[in-house]
């Protein structure tokens, strides 16, 4: 059982790129990763680099581990990049005939990246539409006798906020879903082989 878990962890981490592995190794966050994981990590890194890079002091307390905002954003942005290569070894005549697994991995990563990038992009795009939306909203109050500036800006901001949220929802979730469908289909295809 323990051996099985170790093999599973090895398989999983072996598909990571070396840079990501070094980062996990250096941070040495034991609240997030188990001791077995670090043992496996050491094994993989030694295979790839010959020698182990220096490791930070082990973090056992969750409160001790405080990342900066930018580190958190960076980590969030690359969370789904774990799959950098096809994790199953391909032998002659064993691989799929209709598609290239590495292409699926690349598209999977691209979709995850675009889905996440769409959040800040949608916000920026939404902000850029404020002046013209305000002009349109103001045109509805052109005959008003009172100063409607506050109401105009309030309505504009609500419209922009709703528009931005909808754009995020309509792009983020379908892209994420499609990315996971691809990943699952690839696993199903692999398991369907003799």
């Amino acid at each position: 059982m323990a051996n099985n878990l170790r093999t599973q962890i090895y398989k999983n981490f072996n598909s990571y790129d070396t840079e990501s592995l070094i980062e996990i190794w250096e941070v040495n966050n034991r609240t997030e990763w188990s001791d077995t994981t670090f043992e496996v990590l050491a094994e993989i890194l030694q295979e790839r680099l010959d020698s182990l890079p220096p490791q930070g002091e082990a973090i056992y307390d969750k409160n001790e581990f405080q990342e900066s905002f930018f580190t958190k954003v960076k980590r969030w942005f690359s969370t789904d990049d774990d799959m950098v290569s096809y994790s199953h070894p391909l032998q002659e005549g064993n691989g799929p005939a209709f598609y290239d697994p590495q292409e699926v991995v690349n598209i999977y990563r691209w979709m995850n990246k675009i889905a996440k990038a769409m959040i800040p992009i949608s916000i920026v795009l939404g902000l850029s539409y404020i002046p013209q939306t305000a002009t349109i909203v103001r045109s509805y109050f052109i005959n008003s006798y009172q100063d409607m500036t506050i109401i105009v800006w309030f309505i504009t901001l609500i419209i922009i906020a709703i528009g931005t949220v909808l754009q995020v929802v309509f792009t983020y979730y379908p892209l994420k879903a499609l990315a996971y469908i691809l990943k699952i289909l690839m696993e199903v295809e692999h398991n369907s082989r003799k």
Partner: protein
Amino acid sequence: MPKRKRKVSSDDFYKRKHKRLDTIALIAKILAWLVLLVSFLAAIGEFIQTKNFLEFEIMNGVLGGTADFSDLMSQRPIFSISLFVEMFNTILNGVIYAVVLKAISLALYMLIEIDLNYSLMNEGE
């Protein structure tokens, strides 16, 4: 009503349904590149259209105080930002459509592969 006979492909292994899916996947794959190309062309078209429109406005004196298009862009950054945002949005939409089409194409190819793998497995049993 008589039952319609199921058409059997000449090749028992690679059936007509696979061929159809293969064709759809190929179309999606080609469309992905086409969409990407069209989105770039549309962004260029947007630039040219906006440039012509603004030059027309300058000529008519609507946008006074500016000599030409480049002068307007440097004097009123809101125009250049707006143009950049529009072009970026067009390209971004193209990229998203292209990636989705490519993903659909790959998903269809994988489905063919899965079906063929199971057919082979059944044949073996």
